């Protein structure tokens, strides 16, 4: 698509509004005119909020930080799709040129028991933090940077670990799963470290502990539908979940943990 031939869109937005965690929420309809197709999705929401503030109304609360697909805070459901219609894209990387003049766009927060709504489109994803706290790190002192060649890591393990490390913890996997399962997220963290030498000492303990926390946070189970993989902006694969399953069963049945 030619970027210079920018067009403008007239849109109808239906946005989930909710004043607080325990308040009832509802979809509210807004109209926007003259939205440039060069805008990002969040810039479109900025325009809406400026207009709401000018009218003395409460702006729509939504999470965002880096606006370049790194921080993982900006996820919302757009017409029933996590981060909108594109693959491998966060909400902040989505452009308005993906939409047509006259479209109605439905925007909802991530919905999961483990992600309570804070306000409007903002959800509390601290359940992810608690999963990480229960094992998503290496607690051995690795010392100064060793000679890279002194720690042999097979190429495919290194690639798998790097690919898993790409997870930005946005929660799109939970949001898009019919069971609100966090398996893709947890598997990215578990396999990332299970595939590297530094992760070996705590390999069994880590997976047992992180899965126990995941279950305690009331995320759902995995039905292997692969919706998470399709929604993931960072390209985390279902094979990570298979490896986590393997790691978990090995740790459960054969480790001393």
């Amino acid at each position, binding site marked *: 698509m030619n970027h210079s031939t920018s067009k403008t869109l007239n849109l109808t937005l239906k946005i989930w509004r909710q004043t607080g965690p325990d308040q009832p929420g509802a979809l509210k309809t807004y109209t926007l005119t003259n939205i440039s197709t060069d805008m990002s999705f969040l810039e479109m929401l900025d325009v809406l909020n400026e207009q709401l503030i000018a009218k003395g109304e409460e702006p729509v609360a939504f999470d965002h930080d880096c606006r370049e697909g790194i921080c993982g805070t900006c996820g919302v459901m757009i017409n029933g799709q996590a981060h909108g219609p594109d693959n491998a894209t966060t909400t902040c990387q989505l452009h308005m040129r993906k939409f047509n003049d006259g479209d109605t766009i439905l925007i909802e927060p991530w919905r999961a028991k483990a992600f309570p709504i804070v306000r409007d489109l903002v959800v509390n994803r601290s359940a992810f933090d608690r999963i990480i706290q229960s094992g998503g790190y290496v607690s051995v002192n690795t010392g100064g940077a060793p000679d890279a060649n002194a720690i042999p890591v097979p190429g495919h393990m290194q690639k798998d670990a790097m690919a898993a490390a790409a997870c930005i913890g946005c929660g799109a996997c939970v949001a898009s799963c019919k069971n609100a399962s966090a398996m893709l997220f947890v598997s990215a963290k578990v396999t990332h470290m299970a595939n590297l030498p530094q992760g070996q000492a705590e390999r069994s303990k880590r997976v047992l502990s992180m899965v126990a926390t995941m279950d305690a946070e009331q995320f759902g189970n995995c039905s292997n539908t692969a919706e998470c993989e*399709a929604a993931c902006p960072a390209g985390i694969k279902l094979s990570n979940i298979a490896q986590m399953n393997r790691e978990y069963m090995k740790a459960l049945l054969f480790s001393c943990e």
Partner: protein
Amino acid sequence: METGSARPKAGLIDWIGLRWFFLLLSSSIGQKFVMGVTGLLLCGFLVAHLAGNLLLFAGAKWFNDYAHKLHEQWEFLIVAETGLFVLFLAHIYLAFATTFGNAKAREEQYAVKQTKIKGRVIGANSWMFASGAVVLGFVLLHLTDLRLAADGINLRGFKYTDDAFGNTLMVLKNPISRAVYVIGSIVLGIHLSHGFASAFQSLGLNHPKYMPLIKIGGKVFAVVIAVGFASIALFAPEIWRGYVPVSH
């Protein structure tokens, strides 16, 4: 590394050394592992059952010989049937446990939900509980039709003889039974079209080299099972239309 608040305090279960077994049946991954194992073992039973039942096409002598030889080995049958019962029970218990847990994980639904998988229409994966429930209903009917009857418990009002071949044809000749058997076979196939490959994923048996084979194999297996069983219900009574049951 702190083991976290998620690990419960040591109790009786640790004293008798069964924490691992408790987690096998209660943790998300343990539950799916057991579902996968029981599902695949049930698939193994289906293969044996279909192979035996295809003898219905070979004729009364073949099928009855097979049935008699099978039932003569009653020690083996007791073990096999108890095993099957346990497999079913575990699979069904976990089907309910995971389905309830999954429903609780999202209490408020989306106003609109769309897949991001290109070309996905309706996935059998969304219908695993429904298709499983239909299979369960069918299995219960099938057991009253042909298994309990063999023990002399007649709940269906058919006129059974000790001719297994004749009894099977008699049940399949009833148009309602026949329709139910065909539908049951097809729904079982739908269950397996997702279940077979899904079980490998749940067991952690995912490997770039074998994944395409497992996926295609799963679909082929589902079709073979569905078409195999359905064809018996559809054609066996037609082929042996003139068969007169023999009482020994």
